[in-house]
């Protein structure tokens, strides 16, 4: 039986450090119900879910009946944990390299049922990672650890904010099966950007928009559901890619040479092999899709190309005419690349404005350290317009929602129409509208003829016309 949890939001307003507010929420969650919280990016879905786990300052009304043991899995919680781990790493005033907290310890902290934890670790294939530092995991692996930790704590209320994002197909299916097994005893609130992906056990949908709870719909109420679905079919007008900076500062590339040539590359650490003997040649105009299960090394392979992986120096890699490790600087490589990934989003922790984040794409920097030209500012304005963020140009980036940050980083990656555009799961955390916007932008940039696109994704439905080559990594 579901534990009889009745939670009531009575005219609740919540403030999040002064940069986001939920207004006058009335919401009744009764025992036996499982809720989906949906709405556009930046509407306050995650904020509402986070209130269930005690986040924010309640400035009006009251929340009644919140159970004590609430487990939350979300980007914010994940980012917080990673930030805490990174912070520990800075501890070396002198000379100690911190190894970070191992996965086993992260999970154990909250575990109530050890046997369950062990079973989940096994199922989610985390056994080989137990002794690895949490912060060294890939995006998908981190997410899995968060999930196992939440499930093993046997919560009175389980809050899952975009739990499927970043998971490969197998893990997704397994999580779904596990959830179906526990929902009878665990009330669940789930945040998803896509209503159509909701699990069948969801009984109710809460639609959030601009910080307000605008609709509460029972899934078996057909007419109310139909009305809600209409929200998702709002059309956006014809979009055009903003021009790049007309003064092309890039050195010319040899048209006959491939952009990227990787020969029999391997990445390994003292005790583990990420992948071995991968060869990959990317010709100009050849758009590629890269797939593979969590932990198969997708991000790692891409970072050999971008130069962010230190082992790019011990592999046979030729990019943009540079044989790596012959005196070129990393900035000579990066000038040809536009890049977006979840890892970049985590690393983009500097206090700067939305507009400067886009302009920083011209300089391949995190934060802006060079005076931008008027043209660059104008191009950034065009991008803000497309993203519907013109009025927020000077707001601080680090206070945006996950989805809005992602949109800006995609604009940052595209802003210079780079010869190589690397999009590592760009649609993670985007709602339906924005996902379609991003897919349309990718399609446009593929068709422009100047940019070659490298695209990583898990969702079959996020296929982009024009991307015809495919590299699939296996589990090593």
């Amino acid at each position, binding site marked *: 039986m579901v534990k009889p949890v009745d939670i009531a939001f009575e005219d609740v307003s919540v403030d999040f450090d002064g940069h986001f507010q939920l207004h006058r929420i009335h919401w009744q969650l009764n025992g036996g119900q499982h809720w989906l919280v949906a709405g556009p990016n930046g509407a306050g879905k995650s904020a509402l879910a986070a209130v269930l786990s005690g986040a924010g300052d309640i400035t009006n009304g009251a929340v009644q009946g919140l159970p004590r043991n609430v487990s939350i899995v979300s980007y914010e919680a994940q980012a917080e944990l990673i930030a805490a781990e990174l*912070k*520990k*790493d*800075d*501890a*070396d*005033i*002198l*000379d*100690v*390299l*911190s190894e970070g907290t191992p996965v086993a310890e992260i999970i154990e902290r909250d575990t109530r049922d050890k046997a369950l934890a062990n079973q989940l670790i096994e199922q989610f294939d985390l056994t080989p990672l137990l002794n690895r530092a949490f912060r060294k995991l890939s995006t998908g692996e981190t997410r899995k650890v968060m999930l196992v930790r939440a499930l093993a704590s046997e919560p009175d209320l389980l809050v899952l904010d975009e739990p499927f994002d970043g998971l490969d197909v197998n893990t997704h299916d397994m999580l779904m099966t596990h959830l179906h097994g526990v929902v009878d005893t665990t009330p669940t609130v789930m945040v998803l950007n896509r209503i159509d992906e909701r699990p069948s056990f969801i009984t109710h949908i809460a639609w959030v928009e601009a910080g307000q709870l605008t609709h509460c719909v029972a899934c078996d109420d057909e007419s109310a559901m139909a009305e809600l679905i209409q929200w998702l079919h709002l059309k956006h007008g014809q979009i055009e890619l903003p021009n790049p900076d007309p003064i092309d500062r890039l050195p010319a590339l040899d048209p006959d040479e491939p952009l990227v040539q990787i020969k029999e590359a391997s990445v390994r*650490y*003292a005790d583990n092999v990420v992948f071995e003997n991968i060869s990959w040649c990317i010709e100009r105009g050849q758009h590629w899709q890269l797939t593979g299960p969590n932990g198969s090394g997708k991000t790692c392979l891409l970072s050999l190309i971008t*130069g*962010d992986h*230190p*082992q*790019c*120096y*011990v592999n046979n890699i030729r990019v943009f005419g540079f044989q790596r490790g012959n*005196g*070129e*600087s*990393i*900035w*000579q490589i990066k000038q040809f690349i536009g890049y977006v990934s979840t890892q970049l989003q985590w*690393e983009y922790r*500097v206090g*700067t404005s939305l507009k*400067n984040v886009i302009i*920083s794409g011209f*300089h*391949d*920097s*995190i*934060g*802006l*350290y*060079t*005076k*931008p030209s008027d043209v660059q500012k104008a191009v950034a304005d065009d991008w803000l317009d497309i993203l519907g963020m013109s009025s927020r140009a000077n707001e601080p980036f680090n206070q945006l929602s996950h989805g809005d940050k992602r949109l800006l980083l995609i604009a940052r990656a595209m802003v210079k129409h780079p010869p190589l555009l690397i999009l590592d799961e760009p649609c993670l955390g985007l709602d339906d509208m924005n996902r379609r916007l991003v897919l349309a932008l990718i399609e446009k940039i593929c068709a422009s003829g100047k940019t070659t696109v490298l695209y990583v994704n898990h969702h079959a439905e996020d296929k982009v016309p024009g991307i015809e080559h495919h590299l699939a990594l296996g589990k090593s």
Partner: protein
Amino acid sequence: MGTNYFNSLSLREQLEQLGKCRFMHLDEFTEGVDALKGKKMVIIGCGAQGLNQGLNLRDSGLDVSYTLRAEAIAEKRQSWKNASDNGFTVGTYEDLIPTADVVLNLTPDKQHTAVVNAVMPMMKKGSCLSYSHGFNIVEEGMQIRDDITVIMVAPKCPGSEVRAEYVRGFGVPTLIAVHENNDPNGEGLALAKAYAVGTGGHKAGVLMSSFVAEVKSDLMGEQTILCGMLQTGSLLCFDKMIEEGIDAPYAAKLIQYGWETVTEALKYGGVTNMMDRLSNPAKIRAFELADEMKDIMRPLYHKHQDDIMTGHFSSTMMADWANDDKELLGWRADTAESAFEKTAAGDMEISEQEYFDHGILMVAMVKAGVELAFETMTDAGIIADSAYYESLHETPLIANTIARKKLYEMNATISDTAEYGCYLYNHACVPLLQDFMKPLKSDVIGKGLQLNDMSVDNARLIEVNEAIRSHPVEAIGAELRGHMADMKRIV
């Protein structure tokens, strides 16, 4: 072992070297890394500084490899793993030193004599030896072969930050110097500049200094305000709060995270901004407490500076090195046994403002320590820029380590040199402040003033504000932070 280099100089030379410090502008670095292009750089040691500097230098297009002691390689120690996991060539001294154009010594001070003695005979004629701290040259009087160029490049941040800022496209403030006795071809400055560019330091600001100024100011800063004052302050404030009946876990938390919180304000806007975070009545109180402490502690700061200048400090410490660190280890164990150290911080919430409001005495201690250290250094002939970096600028970095791991770990992670000096200071300063502490109550530490009436006398407030703002550390601080901000946030 050589004799103390500083003491071998004439007074004129001493003053000249101590007074050497100039902020270099970005346009002085137009040659980029050219002076090091194609040269073989071999780093000794692969801890956080060694590894992260090496990663930056390599990403700037330079040829970097690591040399470790044969045992470290054979046993695959952490330093070996750090280097090889990151795709660097690792070899023994015999393998790599003879091929090196530049040898970067990034080992701890204590090992310098042994390391340099081991590698110097193998170094190529006309090559370059680089340090990140001048203790070995200045205090131990290490004599380097005449044909070798000796430089120093010292990023003023922990290794992980050196890397993180580089990856963002920026850098961290860096001090460079050339050892005048060892610049046979006059290329020392060009090499040091190129090295600073290679680590990204030129973007955040480079200070051109001397080995002497670096050592004498670094030692002074770390043993007084940076580590010593924070250690003494932690112990005294905690004991006072317990005496006043404050909940121990609360007291432990207020101190453990309080230093970090109040010095964050220091980082942004100097002592002025830190003091401005207090209410007017609290600010006046903190000002008066700081003034009183400055009078009490001034002779101690002078003694530390004098002992550093004469070499008395380093010879005492080196004697302890020779005695298997007996004093150091004993003091370290004492620290671990202190009441503050043994009380876990509570999990109550303390807002950012509460750290100021309830930590008036801590704010006063930071103010007193920063100003005294700065005054003492500049009085001793160290130029204001150096004195600023070695006092105010680094305080938040050390406060940060206390926030993470309290005193015992702070002491274990800072250099042995800093730790030794910190204990010396602490042993003298705790008894010195005894009478001052006696009458204090929880209104200045633990509970806050709790006034219903916040009014103050206008004339007194103006006087206090004027005194805070006109301290010389504020003028140089505003200028140097301005350079940083110019470069960091151009728009």
